């Protein structure tokens, strides 16, 4: 009995560069009609839509499924990394970050390593901003203490406060 020929066997035997071009086209902007036209013009191959559809099911659909599953996993990994960073993200901000990364990673031509570098930069930038805010707060606090010390010294020089009172205040303010 003659063996039944696969409808997409013509496509499976395309040269590797043509095979990849067809797969990438279907994973990208092409529809079936564009693919059929390209096959006809560039590869001199005529095939039915059902043959092309079988090719899509075998070589493109699994890639799309893997792409969306990886986008979910990598977005989750990034969120996990963000949680362990010194930045205190609230739940809503974390959810937005997760969604942003998911959408970036779902794009066909996005390199996951580049997306990760972008994420790391974002976290580092947020962390630096946090450090900067902490530093400014400390500077303000130091300035307030300095002002208070000057004011107290002035009071002392005018005989307004006893040595003991001044020492008590300075100890309380952590200046001694």
């Amino acid at each position, binding site marked *: 009995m003659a063996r039944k020929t696969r409808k997409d066997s013509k496509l499976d035997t395309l040269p590797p560069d043509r095979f990849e071009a067809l797969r990438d086209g279907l994973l990208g902007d092409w529809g079936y009609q564009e693919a059929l036209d390209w096959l006809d013009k560039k590869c001199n191959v005529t095939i039915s839509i059902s043959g092309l559809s079988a090719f899509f099911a075998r070589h493109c659909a699994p890639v799309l499924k893997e792409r969306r599953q990886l986008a*979910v996993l990598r977005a989750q990994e990034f969120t996990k990394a963000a949680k362990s960073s010194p930045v205190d993200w609230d739940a809503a901000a974390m959810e937005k970050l997760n969604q942003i990364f998911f959408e970036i990673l779902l794009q066909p031509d996005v390199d996951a390593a580049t997306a990760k570098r972008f994420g790391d930069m974002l976290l580092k930038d947020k962390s630096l901003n946090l450090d900067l805010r902490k530093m400014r707060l400390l500077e303000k606090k130091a300035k307030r203490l300095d002002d208070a010390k000057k004011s107290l010294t002035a009071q002392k020089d005018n005989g307004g406060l006893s040595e003991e009172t001044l020492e008590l205040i300075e100890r309380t303010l952590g200046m001694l």
Partner: protein
Amino acid sequence: MNLQREILEVLRDVSGHLMTTASVHAQVKCSTGEDKTLTDVASELEGLERKGHARGLNHEDFGHRWAITDAGKVRLAD
């Protein structure tokens, strides 16, 4: 293959995340054995929303996005 089912599978795979109509289209445009336009996919998504299987959300930061509902997950399991 049924386009609504394909759309639900995509939304289920990314459950917990939202998708634009264009992203859903990119995932399913050839999956039913014929070319589907963005309008076809938008129309099916609206149909799924009417059945309560998908939910369209206007997110304040991201704009309009789609998600699967629990009823949509049940439909896929059937």
